[in-house]
Every structure is written in C-alpha cells, then in structure tokens.
C-alpha cells in the first residue's frame, strides 16, 4: 500500500475499535445469561426468521470466500464466476435437501443427527473427529489470511506484525465465541453481513457507474485489463485447458457444491431456527442475500480486473486475495482526496469485519463438537449436567482458538491456501455422504458410517499430501521439494465417489443390525416431523 493513506489508516483503526467494542457489548448483553446448554448452542431458537437468515449467510460468506473469490474473478474471469455459481448452488442444496431434516432431527450438532440414528460411542467420536478435522484447517486458513490482510490494511509489513495481528484477532474472536455462544456470534454475523453488504454494494455501484451501468462494457474492459484477452471469459483461465486442468476445474466445482453445503458451522445455524418451516424460510432469505452479495462480488472482481489490471493484482499477491483492497484504492478518485479515503476506509472495514466474524463462527462450531460430541457424549456418556457442559463448551472455544492461533502462527511462512481445499474436500467426501445416507437410506449401518468417515479422512489427507498443493510447484506449501504423484490440487473428484462407495459397501457387506434399522425409523420420523419419540429424549 502507498504511504499516502496514513489518515485513512487512522479511520480504519478507529472503525476496528468501534466494531470490536460494539461486538463485545452485544455479546455481553445478548449472550446466554445463565448456564443453559440450549441457550449457548442454539440461542434458545430465539433469533427471528430474517435475523437467522442474515446469520446463516454471514456464517456462509467467510473471509476466504469474499477475498479469494474476488481474486479468482479478477484473475480468471469466467472460472471465478463459476465459483460464485457453485457457492450459491451449495446453499440451495442445503435449503432443499438438508435444512428441514437437520433442523428437526438434530439438537445442537451434526453428531446429534447421527446419534439420533445410531446412538453409540463410536459414532459420536467419529462425528466429533471429522467435525474438528473439517473446522480446524478452516480456522487456521481464516486466521492466517486475516493476519496478512489486516497487516496490509494497517500498513504493516513483516512476519512480526502479522503474528501480532493473528494473535489479536484470534483472541478477540475466541472471547466472542466463549462469551456469546450461538446468539452472540449470530449477532456478530448479522452486524458483519449488514456492513459487508452495504460496502460491497456501494463498491459494485461505483464500478457499474464507471462503466455507465453497462455489463458488456464492464466485461470487455475486464478482459482487456486482465491481460488474458478473450480467454478471460472462456473456461479454463484458472487451471488451463488441458485434461488435468479440466479435471481440476471439475473437482473444485464438485467439492465446492457438496462441501460448502455441510460445513459444521452452517449446519449448526440450522438448529437455531424455532421450527422446520422457519428454517426453510430463513434459508430462502439466506440464499437470496448470499446470491445478491455474490453478485456484488462478481462486479467487484470484474472491476478490479478492469480498473487495477491483472498484472498489478498478480504482482501484489499471486492468489489475488487483496484485489478488492487494490480496487478500493483506484475507485474513489485521486489518492489523498476525501472520496478516495472514504472508499478505502469503508472497504477495509468490511473486509476486517468479515474476517473477524468468520473466525468467531468457525471457532464456535469446532468448540461445540468438541464439548458436546467428544466430551459430553463420547467421554462422559451424555449424563453431564448442562451447567458443566456449557462450561466445557466455553473452555473448548478457548482451547480451539488457542490451537488455531498457534497453528496459524507456526505456519505463517507457508502457503496455507491448500487448507481451504482440505476443509471443503473433507466436508464433501465425509460429511455429505453420511448425511445423505443417514437421512434417506434405510439400509445404512454404523459400519458404513465409520467406513465413510475414516476412509474419506484418510483418502483426502493422503491424496492432498501427495498433490501439487503440498509439494513441487511455486504455489505449494513446500515449493522446494517435490514428492507429488497425484495430479490434482483438490481431490474431490476421486474422494467424493469413494466416500459414497465406502458407505454403501460397508453397509451392504453385512446385514444391518436391527438397532440400525430401528434407528432409521426413529430418525426419519423425527426428521419429517420434529417429534422426539418416547425413547431416550435426545439419543444416547
């Protein structure tokens, strides 16, 4: 960033402090006032339809989504637009397939949904382990991205400044998650969504205004600015048009659609709707809000390519993550003017708020599965008093946050973008198959479930370890060495079918035990109607 924006940085810092203070107040005021597990995990299902929708879309639109998607659109045009298409479609998939049954069948976490069918300790442990395996890399990548972007925002450079940023952001957000629980983070998400929507909307309007409200002109200018010419608006700009490139593109798309649909911090939000119909209506609003927001992201990305230029963006950051910040520097007019400073400050605030909120949401989801699935149910057999479970959840949030911060600081010098694809691949290959099977297939057994969960965990980790994302390339975690043999950076095209296959084979290989079949009847009735049967109230 140019040093001429010192006054802007003051504005940005003040805005950060105001936001942090407001959020702490919100959390303290709205947080669970007594040690009630339902209050902590689901906000007592008290958020209204529209606020819940804002919270869902706020959780869904993570910092990585905003920054990387804008960057991909700025650098690769049509491929980036396909990413927004997949992102929107994933939320629709949640709405159609998962929202109602998950709301009806689950109490707090994904583990509750699975335990409604197979209430054994192995299932709880597996659910908790996979939920953590999905959320922890996501947390690390958000924190790590947060560190670098905030350092850029504040005009700092060097790893020391980044470390300080990561630690401060992480600590603040852990406090939110631990104090505020579901309602507190929900309010943070709502505030974030309003701010982000307003500033990205303004940014998009400014870009469109520059191009006389003509999409065609904008697209032409973006193609020229990208330096790619016609291939900017042709598929294949991101991964190349060879066979591997096409397969990679396909793999990323599949992983995104199926993986984003069942990330634990999204599905957890569904439990906070008061009933299935509200969950559906909330999802409808959430899809609308998300789609509108993604439209502004597309315009911002195209604007960045047209006004900043692909070469400049790639120079600043090869993944294009700070393209939206670069765009804000060119949009407001000449540097140093009020208009310019205002645009920069507003966009910086939006980015900062988005980063903070996504860290809080993911921390809470990880803490909930740790405290509820692994501790309260798997370790303590489900008989824990609510007060102690909430205390455990608060401490789990602190623990998860500290581990996340430490990992983000340790991996500071590495390119951790691959963790994003690890999260989505795990979610798509482990969580999506077991959710679909558990909810809709009578013959699914505990054996199949464990095969899918652990098999997908192993296959995704193995293939990613030997992929070009880890070794043997300029964008890899270890660019200096080369031990890759798997050609794709995102293994979803192999691991998703494998996950389904493992679950099917593990289930049909032996006849289903009576308890699993009875579990299906129980889960289905609960998923369809929301009644809890006369058995033990919530699994286990």
């Amino acid at each position, binding site marked *: 960033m140019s040093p001429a924006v010192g006054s802007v940085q003051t504005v940005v810092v003040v805005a950060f402090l105001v936001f942090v203070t407001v959020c702490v107040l919100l959390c303290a005021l709205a947080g669970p006032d007594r040690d009630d597990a339902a209050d902590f995990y689901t906000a007592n299902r008290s958020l209204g339809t529209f606020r819940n929708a804002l919270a869902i879309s706020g959780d869904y639109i993570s910092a990585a989504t905003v920054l990387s998607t804008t960057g991909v659109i700025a650098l690769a045009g*049509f491929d980036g637009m396909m990413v927004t298409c997949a992102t929107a*479609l994933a939320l629709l998939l949640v709405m159609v397939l998962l929202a109602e049954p998950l709301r009806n069948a689950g109490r707090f976490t994904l583990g509750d949904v699975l335990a409604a069918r197979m209430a054994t300790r192995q299932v709880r442990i597996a659910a908790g382990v996979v939920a953590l395996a999905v959320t922890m890399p996501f947390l690390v990548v958000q924190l790590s991205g947060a560190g670098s972007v905030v350092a850029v925002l504040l005009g700092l450079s060097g790893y020391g400044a980044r470390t300080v940023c990561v630690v401060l952001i992480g600590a603040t957000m852990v406090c939110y998650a631990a104090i505020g629980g579901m309602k507190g983070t929900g309010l943070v998400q709502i505030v974030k969504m309003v701010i982000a929507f307003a500033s990205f909307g303004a940014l998009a309007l400014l870009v469109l205004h520059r191009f006389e409200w003509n999409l065609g002109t904008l697209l032409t200018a973006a193609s020229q600015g990208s330096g790619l010419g016609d291939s900017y608006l042709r598929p294949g700009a991101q991964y190349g048009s060879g066979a591997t490139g096409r397969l990679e*593109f396909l793999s990323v798309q599949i992983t995104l659609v199926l993986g984003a649909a069942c990330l634990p911090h999204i599905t957890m939000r569904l439990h906070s709707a008061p009933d299935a119909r509200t969950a559906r209506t909330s999802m409808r609003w959430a899809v609308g809000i998300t789609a509108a927001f993604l439209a502004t992201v597309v315009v911002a990305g195209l604007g960045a390519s047209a006004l900043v230029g692909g070469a400049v963006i790639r120079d600043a950051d090869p993944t294009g993550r700070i393209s939206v910040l670069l765009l804000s520097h060119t949009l407001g007019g000449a540097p140093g003017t009020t208009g310019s400073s205002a645009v920069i400050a507003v966009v910086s605030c939006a980015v900062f708020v988005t980063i903070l909120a996504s860290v809080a949401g993911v921390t809470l989801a990880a803490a909930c599965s740790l405290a509820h699935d692994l501790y309260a149910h798997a370790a303590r057999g489900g008989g824990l008093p609510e007060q102690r479970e909430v205390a455990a959840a608060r401490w789990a949030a602190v623990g998860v946050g500290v581990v996340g911060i430490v990992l983000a600081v340790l991996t500071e010098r590495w390119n951790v973008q691959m963790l994003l694809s690890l999260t989505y691949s795990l979610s798509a290959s482990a969580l999506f198959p077991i959710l679909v099977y558990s909810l809709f297939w009578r013959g699914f057994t505990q054996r199949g479930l464990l095969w899918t969960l652990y098999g997908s965990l192993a296959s995704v980790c193995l293939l990613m370890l030997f992929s070009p994302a880890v070794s043997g390339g300029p964008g890899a975690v270890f660019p200096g060495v080369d031990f890759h043999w798997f050609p794709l950076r995102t293994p979803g095209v192999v691991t998703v079918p494998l996950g389904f296959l493992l679950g099917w084979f593990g289930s049909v290989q032996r006849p289903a*035990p009576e308890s699993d079949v009875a579990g299906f009847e129980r889960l289905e009735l609960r998923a369809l109607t929301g009644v809890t049967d006369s058995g033990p109230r919530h699994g286990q």
Partner: protein
Amino acid sequence: MSTWDELWDPTYAARARQRRPGRHAAPPVGEPARRTGPGPVTEARHTVRREVRRLHGQALVPLFGGYLLLLFLCSAAPDLLGTAVVGGVTIGVVLLLGQFLLAFRVMRLFSRDARTRLDPEAARLRSLAETAAAESATASAEAATAASAAASAARPRSEVGW
C-alpha cells in the same frame, strides 16, 4: 419407497420381508386392521415421505441439470461459452445468469409447494405420532422390558454374515 432402497442394497428386499412380514401383505378384508398391518402413522409417514421425494426431485433435477450442463459445456466446448453475443457479454455469462434465474424460480416453487403440500401432511403425521406415543406410553414399562429381551434375543441372529 422400497425401490430406492433396493437400488442401493440388493439384500434390502429380502431383509425387509424377513423383518416385517405384514408390511407387503394386504390387510385381511372385512377384519379390523391388526397390529401387523400398516397403521395410520405408517401410512401418513409414507405420504410425507412421498411428498418430500417429490419436492426433492422437482427442485434438484432442474437445478443440477442446468448446473451439470454448464459444467459439461465448460470442459467440452469452452470456445462456445467464450463467444460474444452482445458487446462483451458471452454465451457463458448469459448461461450463468440463466442459472441464477432458474435457481430463484426453483426456490420459489419449492417454498410454495413445501408450504402447501408438505407442511399439512407433516403436521398430520406429527399429531398422529404424538397420539400414538401417548397411547403407548402407558404400556411402555412392560414393553420396554419385553423389547430389550427381544433385542438381546435377536442380536446374535442378525450378526451372522454371509
């Protein structure tokens, strides 16, 4: 729908027959329904399940049909998608916008049909199931002991593999 289960699991039909002998048999004519026949709760459940499947099909087929077509074109005909139509707008961009409009339309239809067709059936099933649960709650003490005895008796048999 048992065809769906059979599609995934060849042994399902055999096991289902073994498990619930009354399920596929017609209830005897002229007699009040026995405990083995499909009760009102089961029938209501089948209705709700059918509605849910219909809603899923109606929403997911056009949605993923359009999306998969777009994905297919991306890898099969990238040049076609890159062809300009009007100004800088390409066929790919037009199709993407179309996909978004399709998504909104599907969403509207889904919400409407879920409200008018699924919700009443689900409410009916809920009240039936709650009534049934309340009725069986009185007899649950004896039933629980009997069920656990039956379950422990059934377990060794069901774990015999092929």
